[in-house]
């Protein structure tokens, strides 16, 4: 409530414990409602006092203890007065308000004596000046339903935020004993019941690298085609439909495709290459879509200016369109990285392996896999630890989960931050 409104508001407390003392305890403290009514009553000339006339709002609260004026009171009864009304009397309702504050106070006092108004401790009486544009009951009902709706919707949104925080907190708490630099840099030992996660971690990076090598060029060029070359015809619509459907194909079907196409038909066997190819096909639609959006954000005028200088279509794309959209394209590629890092199903049968002995130290520990071998991967390692290894320590499993989730979230955060910064620096 603003200062001006407060000046026009008067809070009056009625408190029995000042009984016996007929005078005001404080400026707004009265021993009974009768005295309060008298204080705001008519002056000798039968008119409302200047103070009473300036009031817009009178709140009357009943207290048990006169020291307790800060405690909130709920306005249980609402009455209105309006100096503009024609009639002399009223009943204090919104439709038929009292003509002024003294009459209103007298009315309230009368009703209090009748027992029509029986506020308990903690409840109050509110007397308001009726505004011409005051909220009607209908309006108030609308506002109430609006605030209920808003609250409910906010609750739904929060129901999505809360689990993320709870899950992250829980995993981090359980994994805390295992997390250390050694955990990241040592290989699994003793049938995977001890040691760290170096081998699967490197395997995941290898998978990401190779799948990126395949998916990024194809995806970016496909995005370029769809935004720069394609006309609005049936072929383009078919491509769009294919992209949407490629994104919607279940990951396990991608796995079956990987087995059918790469492992069996292309004779790659279960290997890093086969798994990377499968991941590449799976993440292609993400790159295509984001590249296309990034390219579409470059204003058409840039291209037209370049064409007018005599540049060909490809020259325009190479020198104008791609440099201006590289940030958006990179964001898409980074998101692909995050997705590829977390996927398990597509690599299950195309190249992931339960355990592989790799070098612990030296250069060989950084390049432990050849393209035609199976690899360990972080996501599959988590699955194995939880479901296949019987006596894996809990902290080890939680630690793996936290590293995996941390990796994915870190990559995602990079994409989000990059996008935010680049969006704010946009030249057009």
């Amino acid at each position, binding site marked *: 409530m603003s200062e001006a409104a407060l000046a026009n508001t008067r809070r009056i407390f009625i408190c029995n414990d000042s009984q016996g003392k007929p005078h005001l305890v404080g400026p707004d403290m009265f021993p009974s409602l009768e005295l309060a009514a008298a204080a705001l009553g008519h002056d000798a000339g039968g008119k409302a006092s200047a103070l009473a006339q300036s009031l817009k709002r009178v709140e009357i609260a009943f207290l048990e203890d006169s020291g307790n004026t800060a405690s909130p009171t709920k306005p249980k009864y609402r009455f209105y007065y309006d100096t503009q009304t024609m009639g002399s009397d009223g009943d204090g309702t919104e439709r038929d308000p009292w003509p002024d504050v003294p009459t209103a106070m007298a009315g309230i006092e009368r009703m209090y004596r009748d027992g029509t108004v029986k506020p308990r401790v903690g409840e109050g009486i509110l007397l308001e000046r009726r505004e011409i544009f005051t909220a009607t009951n209908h309006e108030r009902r609308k506002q109430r339903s609006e605030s209920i709706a808003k609250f409910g919707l906010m609750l739904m949104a929060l129901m999505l935020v809360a689990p993320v925080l709870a899950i992250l907190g829980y995993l981090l708490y359980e994994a805390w004993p295992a997390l250390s630099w050694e955990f990241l840099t040592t290989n699994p030992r003793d049938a995977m019941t001890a040691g760290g996660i170096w081998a699967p971690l490197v395997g995941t990076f290898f998978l990401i690298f190779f799948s990126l090598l395949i998916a990024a060029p194809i995806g970016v060029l*496909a995005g370029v085609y769809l935004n720069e070359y394609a006309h609005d015809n049936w072929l383009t619509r078919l491509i769009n439909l294919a992209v949407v459907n490629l994104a919607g194909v*279940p990951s396990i079907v991608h796995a079956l495709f990987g087995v059918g196409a790469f492992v069996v*038909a292309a004779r790659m066997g279960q290997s890093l290459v086969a798994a990377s190819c499968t991941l590449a096909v799976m993440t292609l639609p993400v790159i295509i879509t984001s590249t296309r959006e990034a390219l579409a954000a470059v204003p058409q005028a840039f291209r037209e200016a370049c064409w007018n200088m005599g540049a060909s*279509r490809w020259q325009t794309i190479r020198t104008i369109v791609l440099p201006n959209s590289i940030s958006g394209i990179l964001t898409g590629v980074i998101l692909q990285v995050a997705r590829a890092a977390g996927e398990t199903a597509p690599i299950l049968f195309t190249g992931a392996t339960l355990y592989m002995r790799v070098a612990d130290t030296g250069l060989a520990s950084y390049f432990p896999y050849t393209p035609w071998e199976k690899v360990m991967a972080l996501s599959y390692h*988590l699955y194995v630890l*939880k479901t296949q290894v019987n006596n894996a320590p809990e902290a080890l499993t939680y630690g793996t989960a936290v590293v995996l989730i941390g990796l994915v979230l870190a990559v995602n955060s990079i994409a989000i931050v990059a996008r935010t910064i680049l969006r704010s620096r946009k030249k057009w």
Partner: protein
Amino acid sequence: MASELNVGEPQGSRRKSASLGQFMQVLADITEPTVELAIRFCGWSAILFVLAIFFFVFREAFPILRGFDFHEFFTSAKWRPDSQIRPTYGILALLAGTGAVTVGSMLLAVPIGLGAAVYISEFCTGRRKEVLKITIELLAAIPSIVWGFIGVVALGPVLLYIKETFGFAGPPMGLNVLNASLILALMSVPVIVSVGEDALKAVPDSYREAALALGASRWEIVYRVLFPAAKNGLLAAVLLGVGRAIGETMAVLMCTGHAVQIPKRLFDPARTLTATIAAELGEAESGGNHYRVLFLIGVVLFAVTFLVNLLADVAVKGIRGSDK
């Protein structure tokens, strides 16, 4: 003569540079069509890959199709691929499992997802909006294997406790249809929120302004104006959520309890089509009947999700059409 020579030399060098330029020109003439060809080819690759997925999955399943008992396949709940006497391949129980967790998760995810989409799109602005959107993006980024892990280690014990305390019927385990539905709901909500929000954003502001001018409150605008105007986009959001729930693999593999039966209650364990492939393909003998049937399930899954995505696409195209 001398003058000719003098003139000739610069001419010669100029001719040389011109020939270099010509060479570059020729190179550019060759490069440009080559690059454009590569771009066109990559552009068409999406179609190629969709066809390739269908082709290669179907190719592995094909040899079993001769004399295959499709009636048993779709109507029998007996999934006994390892039986020595007579292996039976009935996927009814698996279909029921997929159906149960999909319906269960959508009952939770659709109202919450659409509610959150409305809240983000219509009721909040500025920093709060950004924070909510980023959090939901992060929700989408959590890998499915981690969701499965959470379902097993965190949600499972909680559900078991609830079941024991309130005496719900069902086997004494925390991995069941309800667990998978809850996890799947959290997994498919982000897609519903982001597509739903896009659909609401696509409704022109003039609609909102007109409704405001008529005295509507914001909630009235939402359910009287925005929902009817954006219904196709919202439908697409729901369908994409359904597609995601049907296709999800690792999380349901870990959370459903892995029992081949038609689930009758929330606390019954079940098994889905996707989980069956993930669990059994590694053990199935390559080229054997079991292996081929698993690929056939893959074809079924592919067809179902293709249909759902197609419907979603048609729904989205619907709003674009009505905007024009």
